[in-house]
């Protein structure tokens, strides 16, 4: 599902990453709609994969924005991405099957206006400001939508607002034990915001390498997906939640090891310290 990352002279151009992130994320989120078409919960994990793709795109957008030196720290970019994205995403959930498209359009409008405000009114005068904030708003909306689709198996408003409680063996609709009513969205909000800003914040500097940062963004994406998948146990059938957890674990384990390999490649030297030092032998 991931964009193939290879070391190219100068790296992959940003527009390519943007197109790949947008398309993969939209396709993966739409694949969760198979849940509704087939009447099973097994396709929920695609939402998490869509969120991971969006996170990778977002981290590269933050890189292009923050290389101009916005002077406020990288985490603020992740915060504004999710702050504007959550509004677009929640409005879009009202539109049924068109939700992901509406989320992208509304987020683009919000992001473009916020970009204009920061670039012209606040006199930042950064060439990529408007484009970057537009992208970040879309990334925020798609990341939230992806995790939401994974946790509830659906992305319509009534599905997010309605949960089920078992009472004497009957499943009764409940609004308190739902994705929105239980405020699980607040946890997902922070998981996604930190995952979007962390990769560039951790990898920036003269030794910045594109493939290493993107691998870290997949790693934190899958780690967030794991946390979201565990929370989804409360909302979706156990089998579908376990499937999400397994997919997230496999993805995380692979990308974590790959990130270690890339980090060792870029490091000047490293000491392979063990978490538990072996006992010294001899007297």
């Amino acid at each position, binding site marked *: 599902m991931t964009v193939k990352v290879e070391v190219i002279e100068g790296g992959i151009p940003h527009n390519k990453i943007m197109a790949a992130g947008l398309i993969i994320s939209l396709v993966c989120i739409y694949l969760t709609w198979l849940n509704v078409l087939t009447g099973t919960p097994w396709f929920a994990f695609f939402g998490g994969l869509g969120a991971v793709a969006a996170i990778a795109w977002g981290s590269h957008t933050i890189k292009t924005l923050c290389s101009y*030196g916005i002077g406020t720290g990288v*985490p603020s970019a992740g915060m504004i991405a999710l702050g*504007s994205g959550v509004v677009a995403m*929640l409005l879009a959930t009202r539109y049924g099957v068109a939700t992901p498209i509406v989320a992208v359009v509304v987020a683009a409008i919000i992001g473009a206006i*916020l970009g204009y405000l920061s670039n012209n*009114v*606040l006199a930042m005068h950064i060439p990529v400001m408007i484009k970057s904030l537009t992208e970040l708003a879309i990334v925020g909306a798609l990341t939230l939508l992806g995790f939401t689709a994974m946790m509830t198996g659906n992305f319509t408003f009534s599905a997010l607002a309605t949960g089920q409680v078992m009472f004497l063996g009957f499943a009764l609709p409940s609004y308190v034990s739902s994705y929105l009513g*239980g405020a699980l969205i607040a946890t997902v909000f922070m998981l996604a915001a930190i995952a979007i800003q962390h990769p560039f914040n951790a990898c920036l500097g003269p030794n910045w390498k594109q493939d290493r940062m993107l691998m870290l963004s997949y790693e934190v994406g899958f780690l967030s997906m794991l946390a979201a998948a565990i929370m989804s146990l409360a909302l979706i059938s156990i089998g579908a939640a376990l499937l999400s957890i397994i997919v997230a674990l496999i993805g995380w384990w692979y990308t974590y090891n790959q990130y270690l390999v890339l980090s060792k490649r870029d490091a000047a030297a490293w000491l392979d310290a063990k978490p538990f030092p072996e006992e010294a032998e001899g007297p």
Partner: protein
Amino acid sequence: MSAVGAKPGGSAGIDPVASVVAIVLMIVMLAIMYMIGTPMAFMALIGIVIGGVLIGFGVMFVPVGGAPAAMGQAPGIATGVAMLAAGAGLAGLFGGAWAAQTTSNLLVIVITGAVGGGLMMAITCLFVNFIYVYGMGIPAASGKVKKDPITGDTQTEYKSQGTEGHGLPFVSYVGGVIGGLFGGAGGTLIYIMLLDVYEESLPAMMQAQSGQLLPIPAAQIMPIAVTLAGMFAIGLFLVNAVLAAYNITGTIEGPHDPKFKRWPRAVIASATASALVGLVAIMIVAL
């Protein structure tokens, strides 16, 4: 390539064309709300704009030190604007939401939120200074003014060479508390306005969406309304805080800092951004 060597952008002046465009945009959004929404929703949007302006203005008071402050090379609290503003605003939001459960008096709720935000900043500033003085062993000294505008204490003798000042001078402490008061009040105002709108309109909208024939009791909708209002308040807060951060570009010492003169830009940008995000937030139930 590197973010480390780049210079922060931003200048002190106001761009008249862009400001007029922003104000026109805000009026357009208010007009859209007036046409499509109920009078209550329109009033709520005006409340949200006021709340957003309070946040954007309040953030200018907070002494933000960033990484230089962590190294004792600049005065202020050693973290970024967005984190500080979010901390103060969310603490205020909790206070305001708690008060909203017990009373319906808007003034009491907003003031409770302001006290929550101010308290949060007061505690933060106190412990920041505690760590600066007893942990890092540096005195509080401003680099931007010769005398503290409130106490009149001289600053330059205490300032180390090669730094822009360090620690948290008294005026910065006061600025931080004022910023927390404004931020907490603004965040709470946004939350209360959205909560009122959702409590009024959400049951009918959920009824239509769910397709059920049986009426849904309003008490069951409450958690949804609270979550939606809370999430949008957090979203609006972060958007306004980051816009204020972009206005400050880096560090600010408090109300005595020359950068404080940039506040008109922050107010215009916050008002427009709040009108935009608030419009979208209310449209969830208004359309």
